[in-house]
């Protein structure tokens, strides 16, 4: 499309909302459709207004806060009139006139005029022609910042009118110039939009200790001083001396341009759900000047959402895009004090449940308002560690846990992690791949806006996976609400677009018994290598003996029944049931180790003997010489059952944990599952075999009973298992464990360990199905488990007959030149 055929898009306003909308439009191929012109009041590119307070307090340089510097406009073929205010909109001619006489025609117009500081009616405020007196400033633009800073150095005393967020930030900035600062607020307490009286009192106390004075419930009536400002007078007649006044008493949307051309203006310019003016289909409105469903937003997150909808609509990318309004949640810093606030700050009636934690001495205050078991509002002051979590709960209107303390405090080691904003860029987030916070942030800012995309590009979270929640948080934070969800996070495997229940249904309905059959039937024949092992595991669980095994769908470990090591050799762990061995077995293992010159022989954490550094081609001979079954120390399957001595020799033993452990291991050995299963039995609650932190564990208690724990972990993640039930006999232990494992096999996502599964599904639900049989599926689960057990073959039998050509070959000699 050439320039003549392009539509002319004119944007009035070069602020954060207008330019974010332009970025979103460009991202949707808008450069092909539109010739873009921007009018900006200020003679600069586009900067991050939120960071102005940092410029004022000196922690950031003005040049650091630019979002789009001037060359960005040229690069994107955008004509920018910097420093030219749009003076008039002529809707009949579709023409904009600039303050310097420039005229520009538009096909589509975007109004993003933002807002202006509200200046309350105070006597003696102006010099002439509405110009503020020397010594009186508003705090809104980069230029305001420069003027305030220039004047503050000459002042001993300064007053800020307005005790909202911006006013307090301005006060902090002034403090850095050595002035005595007083904040004057016309309400009974500070930050009344985000705090309640009790929280505000704690904040005020913290700020007073930093050296700021306050005057609440005070209405300024007059500025004192003839030539220079000397102070203020309040409506009660009292006075306060000061050489400087900064007004930060809120903002008012800039709507006069819109009102003058006949658009409907109430508190803001009224827009519909596509962010289009209700009066003119060619005019869109975005940002602080827009009124949507009766609300005008002054925070940044809603602007992002508005910009996305508008861009979808104006480019025709998605004509059905709808902006449904935003739920306001903010996390900010007030003079270095952390604060998160969302929803309402007070209970609306006696039905609301209010949870409060207050620790004034440390400046900490936390409050939750719960309505119908959902979060209606929250304040976190002085410690916003749980803010990201609460904001998510608030945004999604999730059901709350019964124990409300979980919402207010991090219980466990996570509490020591510093909040994201404070974390330096160099902090290593992924300890497996060595990826820093800065790398993640830059990757997200480069345009990769899905958590999975960032993980793949940086390799963060691709190791043990324990950092994934933190990676997700950082990416979300870096995208500032522009996070895109990768739909594949809901799929069982990324290469087949179905969640697990739908996938299982399709597999059963279409009788898909091999991995290639699944790709052909459900993924347009497109094979995804990363999805193969997950599908293989699921199909084996569903079809047991009927599963059509395709070896290429297996990870190398499962093709050669050993665990690949960093040098391409393998480790061999023979099955030693319950960790109970014999001199003959040990002798055989020792002989094999010598014969094959095994570089390392090691006792594993699961009480087994590991022969490390075995060549692939030696594997079959090693197994034959050992004459023992595979210990499955390489598979996503039942691994081992660790035991303690129990009643056999231990003087404290209450139950025969070795006999039970051996029974468990003989029954479930090699059973495929979504992730590995580590089990243990303990002969008494001293828990020497660590059964309480295993995927499934049994602990003997007095009276011949066994407590069964599920979902424990002591690896990358540490979690004590949940008590599933108490069993009366070994048989019952085997039945309950089997039924739980089958339920897990059928319902967990691929690679989801039992601890993740338990936290996702909840022990109550698991207990209801497995123990109480509330869904009436216990019998079917037991039968399916039995079928899985019956399908077991010792894979090391392939030592006698290989399954595929050159299965264990290291290198094959090519036949030669033709």
């Amino acid at each position, binding site marked *: 499309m050439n320039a003549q055929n392009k539509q002319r898009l004119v944007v009035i306003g070069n602020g954060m909302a207008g330019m974010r909308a332009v970025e979103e439009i460009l991202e949707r191929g808008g450069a092909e459709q539109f010739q873009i012109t921007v009018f900006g009041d200020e003679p600069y590119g586009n900067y991050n207004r939120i960071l102005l307070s940092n410029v004022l307090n000196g922690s950031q340089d003005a040049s650091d806060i630019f979002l789009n510097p001037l060359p960005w406009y040229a690069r994107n073929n955008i004509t920018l009139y910097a420093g030219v205010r749009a003076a008039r909109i002529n809707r009949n001619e579709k023409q904009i006139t600039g303050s310097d006489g420039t005229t520009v025609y538009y096909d589509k117009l975007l109004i993003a005029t933002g807002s202006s500081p509200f200046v309350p009616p105070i006597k003696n405020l102006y010099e002439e022609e509405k110009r503020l007196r020397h010594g009186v400033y508003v705090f809104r633009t980069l230029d305001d910042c420069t003027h305030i800073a220039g004047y503050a150095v000459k002042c001993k005393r300064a007053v800020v009118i307005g005790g909202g967020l911006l006013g307090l930030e301005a006060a902090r900035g002034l403090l850095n110039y050595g002035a005595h600062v007083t904040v004057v607020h016309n309400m009974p307490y500070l930050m009344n939009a985000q705090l309640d009286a009790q929280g505000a009192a704690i904040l005020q106390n913290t700020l007073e200790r930093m050296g700021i004075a306050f005057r609440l419930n005070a209405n300024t009536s007059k500025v004192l001083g003839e030539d220079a400002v000397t102070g203020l007078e309040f409506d009660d007649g009292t006075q306060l001396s000061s050489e400087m006044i900064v007004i930060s008493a809120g903002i008012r949307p800039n709507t006069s341009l819109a009102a003058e051309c006949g658009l409907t203006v109430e508190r803001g310019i009224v827009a519909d759900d596509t962010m289009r003016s209700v009066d003119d289909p060619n005019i869109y409105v975005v940002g602080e000047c827009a009124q949507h469903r009766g609300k005008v937003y002054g925070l940044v997150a809603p602007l992002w959402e508005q910009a996305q909808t508008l861009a979808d609509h104006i480019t025709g990318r998605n004509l059905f895009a709808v902006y449904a309004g935003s739920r306001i949640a903010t996390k900010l810093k007030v003079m270095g004090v952390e604060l998160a606030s969302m929803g309402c700050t007070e209970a609306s009636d006696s039905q609301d449940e209010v949870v409060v934690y207050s620790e004034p001495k440390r400046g900490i205050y936390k409050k939750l308002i719960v309505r119908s078991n959902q979060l209606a509002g929250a304040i976190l002051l002085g410690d916003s560690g749980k803010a990201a979590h609460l904001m998510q709960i608030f945004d999604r209107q999730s059901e709350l846990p019964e124990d409300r303390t979980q919402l207010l405090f991090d219980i466990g080691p996570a509490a020591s992690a510093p909040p994201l904003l404070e974390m330096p860029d160099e902090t290593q987030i992924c300890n497996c791949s060595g990826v820093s916070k800065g790398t993640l942030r830059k990757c997200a800012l480069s345009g990769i806006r899905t958590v999975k995309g960032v993980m793949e590009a940086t390799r963060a979270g691709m190791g043990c996976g324990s950092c994934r929640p933190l990676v997700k948080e950082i990416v979300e934070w870096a995208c500032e609400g522009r996070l895109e969800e990768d739909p594949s996070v809901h799929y069982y495997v990324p290469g087949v677009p179905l969640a697990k229940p739908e996938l299982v249904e399709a597999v059963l309905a279409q009788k898909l018994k091999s991995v290639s059959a699944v790709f052909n039937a459900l993924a347009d024949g497109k*094979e995804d290598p*990363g999805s193969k092992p997950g599908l293989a595991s699921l199909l084996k669980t569903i079809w047991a003996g009927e599963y059509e095994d*395709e070896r*290429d769908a297996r990870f*190398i470990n499962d093709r050669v029944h050993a665990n*690949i090591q960093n040098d391409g050799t393998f480790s061999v762990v023979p099955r030693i049931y319950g960790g109970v061995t014999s001199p003959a077995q040990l002798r055989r293992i020792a002989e094999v180790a010598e014969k094959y010159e095994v570089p390392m022989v090691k006792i594993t954490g699961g009480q087994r003997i590991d022969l490390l550094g075995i060549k692939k081609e030696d594997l079959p001979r090693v197994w034959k010489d050992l004459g023992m079954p595979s210990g499955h120390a390489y598979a996503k399957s039942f691994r081992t059952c660790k035991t303690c001595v129990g009643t056999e020799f231990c003087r404290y033993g209450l139950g025969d944990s070795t006999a039970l452990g051996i029974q468990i291991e003989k029954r479930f050995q090699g059973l495929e599952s979504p992730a590995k299963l580590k089990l243990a039995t303990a002969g008494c609650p001293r828990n020497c075999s660590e059964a309480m932190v295993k995927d499934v564990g049994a602990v003997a208690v007095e009276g011949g009973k066994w407590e069964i724990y599920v979902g424990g972990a002591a690896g990358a993640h540490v979690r004590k298992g949940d008590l599933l039930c108490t069993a009366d006999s070994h048989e019952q232990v085997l039945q309950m464990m089997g039924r739980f494992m089958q339920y897990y096999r059928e319902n967990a996502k691929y690679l989801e360990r039992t601890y993740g599964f338990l936290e996702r599904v909840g022990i109550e639900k698991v207990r209801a199905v497995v123990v109480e049989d509330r869904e009436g599926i216990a019998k079917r689960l037991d039968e399916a488990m039995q079928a899985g057990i019956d399908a077991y073959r010792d894979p090391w039998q392939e030592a006698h007959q290989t399954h595929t050509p050159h299965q264990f070959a290291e*290198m094959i000699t090519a036949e*030669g030149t*033709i």
Partner: protein
Amino acid sequence: MITKDTRMVRIAALQSIPAGEGRVFLVEGVPVAIFHARSGKVYASQPDCPHRGGPLADGLTGGDTLVCPLHGWKFNLETGKGQNCSIQTYHVETDSSGYILMKWPQITGG
């Protein structure tokens, strides 16, 4: 010296590599990983992953994508391109009797 001339080297029957898997072959003294995709196509590449030397022939394949078994690095078997670095790939094909042939540089004396 190496000239632009090439010749074909016969590797092995296609069935000697299971569908979807790879094997390492010693071709004129040089180890080469050769893959038999489920589509029937064959691919060849250097045998070790440039990241940490993982055995690429032991990786998972799907379409023309290869995943190293050690740390999951992905490569395109046709072009050798990966997310962070590339691998050397070679031209291989199958003849009418089902044999894998590999194009090999002609090295002449001198």
